[in-house]
């Protein structure tokens, strides 16, 4: 029997196990929406902006490990979703985005709402397809899902012209994919793995540097075994948070620009860096020429371009984390004995010293302004038993979330690392909530960032996605203000948000619940109330506006040269000629 392109589209999604589609209609995709409207297998979540649809697909993907799927119309629909595609590309998020296109006969004619979707998305997708013939549609969709989810995952765009969605073809879904130019390597080179094992046995000051790749690979168990067997400390990247239990004695927490003191010191002074599924981003390496000056480097990554892109590697292993770690563990199991423990005792003594010297700190006064760290810490302590999924926006609050919310498991951390997209958090949280209706999904947001996708509250209400948003409301683009404090002599050019809406009323206007924490003593009670609500909630927490996030390695600085607190000249500045926290507070609540 022949099916229309729109029907083929739906059949293909069903074959790929897609249950949820984040979408916003328009002229050229009406046939697809009309067909979707007449079936029940796939839920359509109507978003208020295509960027929201894209980030929801990302959140869905990060939480489930499966491809997130979104559908947008031509022209402006496409240009709106670009930010989400670029975000997914930077963070290797598996995602398939379908875009509508003007009829094939009009392509290139500057037709109404035409955009060069393939040209626009080429630099921010892993691959993209323009389907010119309905007979190719099914095979193309199969390839799109295959490419998005294998090797180093990433976003794939499928552009479907209007006539293709209306035309008919015989439907057959291929059960295999054959792409001669695409052949990701999963097995690591055995000889190299042996070399790695030998280096690990000999190292006196080894450190594991693990990233998002461990999560994509589902290799947390293997990582835990490796670390425990060899007693090697574990540094996590921002994208790697959760792949190793945050409260584990071997965990050093996050490394990098806002990483912990011990994580960065251990990296700098180590003699063997074992990088697994991490890409030596400049927020981690700092000044490349002085990065890990004493260390040999082992690098396990499925993407050969990640290896030796930024720094030299002694033992490169191209392969999948899980497969490589299994093999490595097998060799080590046979060779590890008590000797390594003695060999590394001085290293651990040193690490414990670092941990004690400069733990993460902040000062919360009993009746002083609320410190943002306190909010994240209490949120963590109050919700950890419910194994929540945590999304963040981008800025200081994101870094405090990374430092104080100690995740125990992978697939619970939704954050935008590579692109650093403000406005990511709320829709990403909704995407995860759509996948797991009964789980607790939190969004730790900034007052600046949340306003970038606030419109999705309408979607949250209608589609019943009871995300709990906690706004660390400092009245500033705080991260920008921090850099201005440190590097621009405190001139706050366009970082003061001035008037911010009343987020409580805003929540209520959408039909959600709005709560405000007025003083630090109320924090627990309000958070508990929010967690007990079955609707979307905004908890507005006015926080101390001038709090800065430490440790901090200034951009281009060296990993062992961290700022641990406001420099003395800065301490004097705050509170004198600037607005005092109290003034700010009245502005916020007025």
């Amino acid at each position, binding site marked *: 029997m022949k099916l229309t392109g729109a029907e083929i589209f739906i059949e293909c999604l069903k074959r790929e196990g897609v249950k949820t589609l984040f979408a916003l209609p328009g002229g050229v995709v009406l046939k697809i929406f009309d067909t979707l409207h007449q079936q029940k297998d796939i839920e359509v979540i109507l978003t208020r902006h295509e960027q929201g649809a894209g980030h929801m697909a990302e959140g869905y993907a990060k939480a489930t490990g499966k491809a997130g799927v979104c559908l947008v119309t031509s022209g402006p629909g496409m240009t709106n979703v670009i930010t989400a595609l670029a975000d997914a590309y930077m963070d290797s998020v598996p995602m398939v985005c379908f875009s509508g296109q003007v009829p094939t006969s009009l392509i290139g004619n500057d037709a109404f709402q035409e955009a060069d979707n393939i040209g626009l998305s080429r630099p921010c997708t892993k*691959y993209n397809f*323009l389907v010119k013939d309905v007979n190719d549609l099914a095979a193309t969709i199969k390839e799109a899902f295959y490419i998005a989810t294998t090797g180093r995952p990433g976003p794939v765009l499928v552009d479907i012209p209007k006539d293709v969605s209306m035309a008919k073809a015989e439907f057959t879904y291929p059960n295999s994919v054959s*792409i001669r*130019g695409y052949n990701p390597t999963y097995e690591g080179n055995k000889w190299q793995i042996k070399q790695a094992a030998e280096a690990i046995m000999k190292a006196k000051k080894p450190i594991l540097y693990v990233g998002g790749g461990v999560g994509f690979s589902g290799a947390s168990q293997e990582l835990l075994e490796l670390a425990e067997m060899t007693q090697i400390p574990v540094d996590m990247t921002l994208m790697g948070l959760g792949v190793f239990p945050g409260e584990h004695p071997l965990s050093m927490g996050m490394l990098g620009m806002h990483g912990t003191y011990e994580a960065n010191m251990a990296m700098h002074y180590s003699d063997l860096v074992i990088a697994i599924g991490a890409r030596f981003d400049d927020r981690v390496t700092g000044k490349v020429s002085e990065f890990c000056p004493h260390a040999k480097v082992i690098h396990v990554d499925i993407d*050969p371009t990640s290896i*030796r892109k930024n720094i030299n590697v002694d033992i490169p292993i191209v392969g999948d984390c899980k497969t490589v770690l299994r093999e490595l563990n097998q060799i080590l199991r046979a060779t590890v004995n008590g000797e390594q423990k003695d060999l590394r005792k001085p290293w651990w003594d040193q690490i414990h010293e670092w941990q004690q010297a400069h733990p993460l700190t902040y000062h919360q006064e009993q009746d002083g302004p609320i410190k943002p760290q306190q909010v994240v810490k209490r949120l963590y302590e109050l919700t950890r038993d419910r194994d929540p999924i945590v999304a963040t926006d981008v800025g200081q609050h994101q870094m405090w979330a990374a430092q104080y919310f100690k995740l125990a498991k992978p697939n619970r951390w939704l954050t935008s690392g590579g692109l650093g997209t403000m406005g990511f958090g709320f829709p990403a949280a909704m995407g995860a909530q759509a996948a797991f209706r009964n789980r607790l999904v939190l969004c730790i947001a900034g007052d600046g960032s949340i306003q970038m996708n606030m419109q999705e509250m309408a979607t949250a209400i209608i589609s019943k996605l009871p995300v709990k948003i906690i706004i660390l409301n400092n009245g500033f683009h705080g991260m920008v203000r921090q850099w201005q404090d440190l590097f621009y002599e405190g001139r706050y050019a366009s970082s003061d948000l001035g008037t911010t809406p009343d987020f409580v009323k805003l929540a209520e206007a959408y039909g959600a619940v709005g709560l405000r924490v007025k003083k630090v003593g109320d924090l627990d009670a309000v958070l508990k109330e929010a967690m007990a609500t079955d609707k979307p909630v905004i908890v507005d927490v006015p926080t101390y506006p001038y709090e800065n996030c430490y440790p901090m390695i200034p951009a281009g600085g060296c990993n062992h040269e961290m700022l641990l607190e406001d420099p003395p000249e800065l301490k004097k500045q705050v509170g004198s000629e600037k607005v005092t926290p109290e003034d700010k507070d009245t502005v916020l609540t007025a």
Partner: protein
Amino acid sequence: MEHIISVTVENKFGVLSRVAGLFSGRGFNIESLSVAPTLDPSMSQMTIVTSGDERIIEQIVKQLNKLIDVIKVVDLNETEFVSRETAIIKVHTKDADRAEALRIVDIFRANVIDSTPSTYTIEVSGDPKKIEAIINLLQPLGIKDLVRTGRVAVAREPARPVAVQTKKVARD
């Protein structure tokens, strides 16, 4: 250092822009690029002349390999290879110059492929030095037009691909 990279790609819509976009997006140099079909009509052959230090060339090769439409990448500098470029040069030739032009054509084993009372159109192929040399000699006569193909190259021995990507059949 200059490298000649030979790239076998799918003969499909948009592949050239993916390769060109990779170079421009990542700030790699392209000195010249030529594309033409191969014996197998489903594939095309690109010859890219680029330059950079060892780390950059390694990234270029890896990034090219990462493109899904790229089937094979060979850095020809890792083997022995022969390369050629063709130039077509139109020169002004007045009376006495015509003989001089023909003498130069002769020395360089070039060909005159078109002639009018006031011009010769000369085709020359060889390595870039030879082309530069003939251009230098013809310049005083007055070059009206010059087009160059960019280099094409082939390995002398069957080349070892930098990273072979074999045909893949994946199960669902």
